[in-house]
């Protein structure tokens, strides 16, 4: 097993892809936390804990869930809205949950507005501008997700979570695989259950 761990950065001028450092993706029913394979149950709790501790916990929904291009996508979008509402209910007044879409992967000219969207090719602008210290990617195509997750790890201290509909992402600090409406709802339930058990840090990001 690799000694490398996928941790919040800033890691390096050009950090490696975690897969190239020997990090392997989880099998069905599993997740990974910091690159170590873990039971999915443990990952729900750790993801919820990270959200509840963050100053600016943020959900980044991608094109696969934003455009209601099939029934499943529409249901996922509803579940993500529920997750966001749950998050807002469970955090303290000093915390500022955000829901910022990644509507597509097209170049953003002349410049992106980091308060309304995130650019997968330059995600750090949105992370830095909004002082986001914990985020989750849902519904982002795998290649674009890995690209963004690695850039975030390279240049920010943001804790990254991926809810991937396929095999998961090593470049996130925590990754679920085979994302479904049930899994999104279960994460919301876990956040609700752990409400009040962890505190956000006193200092700002």
């Amino acid at each position: 097993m690799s000694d490398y761990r996928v941790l919040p950065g800033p890691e390096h001028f050009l950090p490696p892809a975690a897969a190239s450092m020997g990090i392997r993706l989880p099998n069905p029913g599993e997740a990974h936390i910091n690159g170590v394979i873990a039971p999915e149950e443990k990952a729900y709790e750790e993801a919820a804990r990270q959200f509840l501790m963050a100053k600016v916990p943020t959900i980044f929904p991608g094109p696969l869930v934003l455009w209601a291009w099939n029934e499943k996508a529409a249901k996922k979008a509803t579940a993500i809205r529920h997750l966001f509402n749950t998050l807002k209910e469970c955090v303290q007044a000093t915390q500022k949950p955000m829901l910022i879409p990644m509507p597509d992967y097209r170049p953003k000219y002349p410049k992106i507005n980091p308060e309304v969207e995130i650019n997968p090719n330059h995600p750090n602008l949105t992370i830095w501008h909004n002082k986001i210290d914990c985020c989750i990617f849902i519904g982002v195509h795998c290649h674009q997700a890995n690209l963004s997750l690695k850039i975030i790890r390279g240049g920010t201290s943001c804790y990254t979570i991926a809810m991937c509909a396929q095999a998961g992402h090593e470049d996130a600090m925590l990754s679920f695989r085979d994302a479904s409406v049930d899994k999104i709802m279960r994460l919301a339930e876990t956040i609700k259950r752990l409400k009040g058990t962890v505190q956000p840090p006193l200092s700002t990001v």
Partner: protein
Amino acid sequence: MAEAKSIIGTQNKKGQTYTDTWKMMNEAPRTPSFYTGSEVIKEAIRRASCDVMIAYPITPQSEAAALIGELFAEGYIGDYFRGESEFAVMSQCAGAAFGGARVFTTTAGPGTMRAMENFPMWAGARLPIQMIVTCRGINSPLSIQPDTLEIAYLLNTGMLVWHAETAQDFFDWILKGYIVSEEPDVHLPLALCCDGFFVTHTKDVVNLTPADMCLPPYDPYRSPVPCMDMECPPVRMMRDPFVMKSNYISYATHASWQQEIWAAVERSRKHSIHWLNGLIDTENTDAEIMIVASGTAVSQGREAIRLLEDEGVRCGLVKVKTLRPWPEEEIREATKNAKHIFVPEFNVTGWLAREIKATIPNHDRVHAGPHVCGGMTMPPEIIVSEIKTALGMKTFSLAGRGS
């Protein structure tokens, strides 16, 4: 996955049943058949649920492209046409794959080199095209005979590169190759190579899966990048975006894009091990003398081992099945007891020996050879001779009879 599973057991327009790939490859009855390698390629593609095959059927490389034209006429392939050149073929393959098709093509030798610009583009665009490379000479004066030098050029394209030893490997790996390369965490093109002529033009007994079973169709919605459409055409990624700005993040994004391609090659390791039963095969790994080879050099190495055993020399074998992903740990483990490692190759530069030297400790154990090229055969006796010479044993020249 749910969509792919739901189609299992249904039939395509030719009456073939979409079959769970593991069952088809490992549990279904096999029929021994006496075929050339080119015919085997045709039979594999008959079962591969291919949407598009694009050909530049210059006949010496193999007859496969023409034979697959027959499959199109029979209705087994969605579309089939001939490109203006090898470069055009590979570009057209990209177009079909961008649109969500399962794509197949063949090439060899100078054709591979002419089309080379496309291969890193395929990998960068995460297109799981399968390309058969029936290797032959690439340099001038031209040769239509086997020579594996072109594989060296493919190793850094970001494609998966597998090297088949036999026609049986070829049949099985064409079908398994689609499954590995279409995994969403991999989703890369596959260059499935063999030594031209030796495999393509000779006949062998190959155990075929039932012709009425076929692979589940490709599901482009599992792709790690969006399918091409008018809102998100590939040109927006290739021309407009981050790479056209001169700043740190533009360069870092392109660098990260490249890293992601090679991360996907790494991810293919798990799937390749599952489907190919390991990235290497081994024999006698406790021996102090090892032959490490890929392609038909493995067959010649196996025969050399038998000849050496007759003389009381014990020798082991490593058959390298995948060159990308590279089986670094496996080769290191398999050769840990070896004092001498011989790498017979059908090319002049010895690229496989270089890869192995970069992989193992104490690489002065590696004897890069014997080499033949330009279509020469590699009699097992010259491998035996190379080994005996290195061991200080008496051996005879195989070059000729003298004056």
